[in-house]
């Protein structure tokens, strides 16, 4: 897969060098990047993600008011599009625009942060099962099967109510339930790679289990893992929004788009904008990550390009 030419010797390497001299050197990642750039939808998704990310990082600077500033003189004001409160105010007189900007922090942090936990739990377990095989594999996979039989969203709700509301608890809940798919994927990749010749060669050259996993198996299984993580991001954003929607997510007074949508959905017939603005943002961000993930998958694995 990689084109570094390592492992080739003598004449073969010279021939290789000649071929590579004829055109610029390209790596798998460079190729994937070019393919990603060529995908218009993925680029649009990427740009929107970038805008939201900037919004999250710069929230303290660009938001006109603090998210919890209450203006009793302007309660439930409709959007005016200009002036003091361009997107209106909520039921207790807080600026909608400021709350929406701050809400980006929660969605971005949960989307990206939860994947770190999913990665840290899912990959080692999958790697262990796939590398060790035999009894360990059987035990781990039985456990994974049971986890699969759980309704994931109900399980997350269960954990959240057990741990209580809170920012870090959302990470834990999503991480604890989200690793299953990733560990299954890692295991399948490892099982397939383990039988390949280059792994046998590395083993013959005296590589120990740790070196085999970190230098040979994991790098080759990386692109499907990255793709799975990318698709996990909108999933995590959805989970946070859903938890906050039913009132067991981010604690007050911090705004989250899901919470805003949930709190104000019962007033939708009188104040439509209060719940519709945050839902548009959630939908937009999730769509962007999905498009970006689609593009990334096609870029990293050209074989799947045709069928989808």
């Amino acid at each position, binding site marked *: 897969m990689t084109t570094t030419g390592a492992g080739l010797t003598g004449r073969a390497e010279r021939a290789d060098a000649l071929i590579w001299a004829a055109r610029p050197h390209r790596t798998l990642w460079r190729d994937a990047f070019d393919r990603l750039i060529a995908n218009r939808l993925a680029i649009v998704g990427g740009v929107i993600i970038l805008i939201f990310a900037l919004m999250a990082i710069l929230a303290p600077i660009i938001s006109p008011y603090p998210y919890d500033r209450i203006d009793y003189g302007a309660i439930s004001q409709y959007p005016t599009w200009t002036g003091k409160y361009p997107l209106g105010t909520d039921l207790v007189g807080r600026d909608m625009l400021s709350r929406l900007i701050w809400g980006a922090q929660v969605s971005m942090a949960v989307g990206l942060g939860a994947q770190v936990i999913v990665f840290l739990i899912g990959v080692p377990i999958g790697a262990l099962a796939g590398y060790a095989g035999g009894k360990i594999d059987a035990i781990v996979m039985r456990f994974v099967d049971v986890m699969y*039989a759980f309704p994931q*969203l109900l399980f997350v709700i269960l954990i959240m*109510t*057990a*741990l*209580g509301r809170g920012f870090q608890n959302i990470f834990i809940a999503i991480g604890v339930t989200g690793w299953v798919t990733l560990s299954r994927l890692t295991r399948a990749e490892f099982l397939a790679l383990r039988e390949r010749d280059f792994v046998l060669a590395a083993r013959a050259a005296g590589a120990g289990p740790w070196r085999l996993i970190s230098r040979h198996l994991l790098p080759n299984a990386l692109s499907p893992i990255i793709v799975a993580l990318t698709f996990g991001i909108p999933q995590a954003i959805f989970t946070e929004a859903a938890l906050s929607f039913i009132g067991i997510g981010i604690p007050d007074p911090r705004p989250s788009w899901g919470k805003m949508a949930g709190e104000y959905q019962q007033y939708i017939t009188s104040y439509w904008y209060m719940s*519709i603005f945050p*839902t548009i943002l959630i939908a937009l961000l999730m769509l962007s990550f999905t*498009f970006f993930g689609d593009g990334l998958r096609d870029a990293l694995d050209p074989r799947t390009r045709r069928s989808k």
Partner: protein
Amino acid sequence: MAHYIARRLLMIIPTLIAISLITFVIMHATPGSPLQPMAANANPLPPSAQQALARKYGLDKPYWEQYLHYLRNIFTLDFGMSYQYQTREVKEIIWRTFPVSLHLGAMAMALAILVGIPFGVLAAINQNGPIDYAARVLATLGVSVPNFILALFLIVGFVLLLPVIPRTGGWESPIDWVLPTIALSLGPIGIIARYTRASMVEVMGQDFIRTAYAKGLAERQVILRHVLKNGLIPPLTILGPMFAAIGTGSPFVEKIFRVPGMGRFFVDSLISRDYPMIMAVILLYGAFLALMNLLVDVLYGVVDPRIRLG
């Protein structure tokens, strides 16, 4: 076949026991107790009252005893009394709310199949044409936008802007069923359309399809007789888990449209730590999911004789 089904049915039991054990551990290993619920307006009870309540519900016994007791009762389908509605049995609550969720789920599922499969087929036939493009946009929207968000958009669209539906909420007349069904089915429509298209495209590239064209069959006949027959098997596999997911109700859709189904009850019971309700709902869901997977596997063997169950 009967042997296979019996074995699979038996295997559901250990899975359910494992699920109940994990649920039990999560419920009890974490801080908080049903005696002092996290609800904002709950009053802390005096210690003597707490002890009396704990004795009444058996919460003063060691955990392993509580669990074994629960397990024994379940085999006689006794799910215990609900903590939040103290005069009502869990069984009775589920008996009343589950059919509502099932009704909503079945309607959404039917709509998803009736719209999703034709959409996928049309998209595959007109590859890269306008219908394909529209199907792809709809599928992506349906898959990646959560149903509670779609529900809010539907309310704004069809109740406020374009008053086709007079009201939202309730479950009395069929007019109340329209929006929740659509909100719940858009995601599944997208998934079914995507799967159908992918599998149709794959079948259309096979040799026997070329042969069918070569022997002079009209396109319509090739599609109906050869492509559809083979292309519809993969989408079949996702229908089971999908129905299990929406057939038990979506807490969000049920909350927004005030549908008196099980999903809404589940969230309420979690927040007030109604242990018997939580257990019962999770077990019911697990059993439903397992049964649906079994049904799909059996159907799979019926549709495609090459697949042997064993």
